[in-house]
């Protein structure tokens, strides 16, 4: 857990800490080891106890004006000096005024007879502490001496004695001891278990070999009166000593969030993302082998170089020159950017060792190159350098680091086409800001590439699957053809588009024809209606005429009859 309030100022005055000078270690225990108190350092053989302890002394002597004493119970001072020289620590130069190494290895031919104690040792140490003005002390491999004591009671008594003496002396102390029950009798183990309760701080170092790769980690078990990182932190033993990977330093929270957009190198993709990636974002491009992951990485690198930003391209797959040649075939030209020094291509195959080592090396490279943009192709290769767990932690820290540095990071990640039960997949996707997935669509004897944005934090983005088209003119995206719930790509898309075009034309013509026909029919009906109207008028006229004729005839008839009567003489 992180320091809740950072390092409280009042507390740091009350109990100042003695910095170890070990990158990351001071960070995870809030500034260093408890000053004037004892720290127990437990670990198996070769876990780095002695290196850590010596680094603490060397740092004290060199940087803190705190002379130190190294009590060597296991290795001779000669061997210790030789080992220290490997890390560039010239112990001879620090002796005799800043460092004193005391050879306290039990004499091999010494015969043990009855109980003994370490009063003599403490007397000698008291003498040296005074002479040197020592502030720090290391009791290296105390277990070696304790193992000679006849019983648990005696062991406890001596541990108490040493602890009391250390507290009284005011020295900041490290006691190292093996923490391997195999090497230990049950009693010895017990007495160290009890020691863990006694001391103010306890740290456990682990060293595992996973698939032939060395993996180191340490964990602060307890730290009285101080908050500390409780989780296991991986570390490497580099040329400069220990380097601890402190997970998520507090400062990461305060990283400036940028609203600046940077181009993905593909215009249509920028549109889909609503303007491109965010500056300092972590972009993940996943896909099977051959889905053009590298091409997308290359497009981003080219765009970055065009903007004049220094870019680092780490390639796990092929050599830098090969990548440049291959990308050239799809219109991504990186050659002159390499020449101008803006772009640096690094083959990750030259970096050997664990994922931790890779991260350390990557940071160095990026810092050296002053890279603003970083492409790692593919990051999934990290898994082969160690087990899944470390690789994931390393990637997590890589993302944190790049974000803190303001570096825009594009990682590709290979997905196995046949998923294996071993689940050797990186869990990077949950941490990435933008996740683009590339896929194949196999249809009608064709493999076509598709691109979709699975997520993109903090920006509106397209939900559409697009077809990714690579040509020597460059990389473009086109709308995938969706018809009847089916996505069509490549030739099928083209055919469907054409077929649909013809269909449309036919139906349009047919529609027009029908319109004309209807018009004609309507016109005909209208004509018929008009003629009927005319007919009706004619009938009406005819009828009126008929009526009139009848009337007149009737009148004529009656007139005729009157006349007849008149003629007949009535």
């Amino acid at each position, binding site marked *: 857990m992180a320091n809740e309030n950072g390092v409280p100022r009042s507390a740091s005055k009350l109990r100042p800490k003695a910095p170890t000078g070990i990158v990351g270690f001071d960070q995870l225990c809030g500034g260093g080891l408890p000053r004037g108190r004892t720290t127990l350092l437990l670990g198996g053989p070769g876990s780095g106890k002695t290196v850590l302890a010596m680094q603490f002394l060397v740092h004290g002597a060199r940087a803190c004006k705190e002379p130190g004493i190294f009590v060597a119970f296991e290795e001779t001072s000669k061997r210790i000096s030789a080992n220290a020289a490997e890390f560039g620590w010239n112990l001879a130069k620090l002796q005799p005024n800043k460092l004193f190494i005391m050879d306290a290895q039990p004499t091999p031919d010494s015969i043990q007879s009855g109980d003994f104690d370490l009063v003599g*040792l403490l007397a000698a140490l008291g003498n040296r502490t005074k002479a040197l003005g020592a502030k720090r002390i290391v009791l290296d491999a105390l277990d070696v001496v304790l193992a000679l004591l006849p019983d648990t009671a005696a062991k406890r008594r001596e541990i108490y004695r040493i602890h009391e003496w250390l507290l009284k002396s005011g020295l900041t102390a490290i006691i190292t001891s093996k923490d391997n029950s195999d090497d230990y009798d049950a009693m010895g183990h017990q007495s160290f278990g009890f020691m863990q309760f006694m001391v103010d701080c306890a740290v456990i170092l682990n060293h595992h070999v996973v698939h032939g790769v060395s993996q180191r980690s340490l964990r602060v078990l307890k730290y009285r009166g101080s908050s500390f990182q409780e989780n296991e932190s991986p570390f490497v033993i580099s040329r400069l000593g220990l380097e601890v990977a402190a997970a998520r330093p507090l400062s990461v929270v305060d990283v400036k969030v940028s609203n600046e957009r940077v181009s993905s190198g593909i215009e249509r993709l920028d549109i889909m993302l609503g303007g491109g990636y965010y500056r300092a974002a972590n972009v993940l491009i996943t896909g099977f082998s051959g889905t053009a992951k590298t091409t997308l990485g290359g497009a981003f690198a080219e765009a970055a170089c065009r903007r004049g930003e220094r870019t680092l391209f780490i390639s796990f797959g092929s050599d830098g020159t090969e990548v440049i040649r291959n990308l050239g075939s799809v219109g991504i030209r990186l050659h002159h950017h390499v020449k101008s020094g803006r772009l640096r291509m690094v083959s990750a195959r030259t970096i050997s060792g664990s994922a931790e080592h890779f991260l350390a090396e990557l940071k160095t490279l990026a810092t050296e190159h002053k890279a603003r943009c970083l492409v790692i192709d593919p990051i999934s290769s990290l898994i082969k350098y160690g087990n899944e767990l470390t690789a994931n932690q390393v990637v997590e820290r890589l993302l944190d680091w790049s974000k803190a540095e303001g570096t825009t990071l594009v990682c590709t990640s290979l997905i196995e086409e046949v998923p294996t039960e071993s689940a050797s997949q990186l869990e990077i996707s949950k941490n990435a800001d933008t996740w683009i997935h590339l896929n194949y669509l196999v249809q009608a004897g064709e493999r076509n590439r598709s691109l979709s944005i699975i997520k993109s934090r903090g920006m509106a983005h397209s939900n559409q699957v697009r077809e990714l088209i690579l040509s020597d003119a460059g990389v473009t995206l086109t709308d995938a053809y969706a018809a009847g719930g089916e996505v069509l790509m490549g030739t099928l898309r083209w055919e469907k588009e054409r077929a649909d075009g013809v269909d449309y034309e036919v139906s349009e013509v047919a529609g027009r024809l029908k319109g004309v026909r209807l018009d004609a029919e309507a016109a005909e009906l209208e004509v018929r209606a008009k003629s009927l109207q005319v007919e009706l008028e004619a009938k009406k006229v005819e009828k009126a005429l008929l009526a009139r004729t009848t009337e007149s005839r009737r009148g004529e008839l009656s007139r005729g009859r009157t006349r007849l009567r008149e003629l007949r003489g009535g």
Partner: protein
Amino acid sequence: MRKPRAQSFKFRLYVADRTPNSALAMANLTALCRTHLPGRHEIEIVDVLRKPERAIADGVFMTPALVKITPSPIIRLTGTLTRTQATLQALGLETPSA
């Protein structure tokens, strides 16, 4: 006490003042000498609390510690010297059969 002869034993016992272990070692050594080496032993007591330089120089950190200086070979023993049989054997004063 007579002057030690050729066969005489010379011991150096490192103690830490009068801490229980040191006191016990001193008593045990005295008893052992009285029994097995009457009149032919010499014991030098070094108190590491008073002479820590001596402890550093001689590389004696576990107390009490006994060094048999003569006769050769030089034998080092650590502890209270309570395991008498083993102690005598180590010092070559008694054979297992005896």
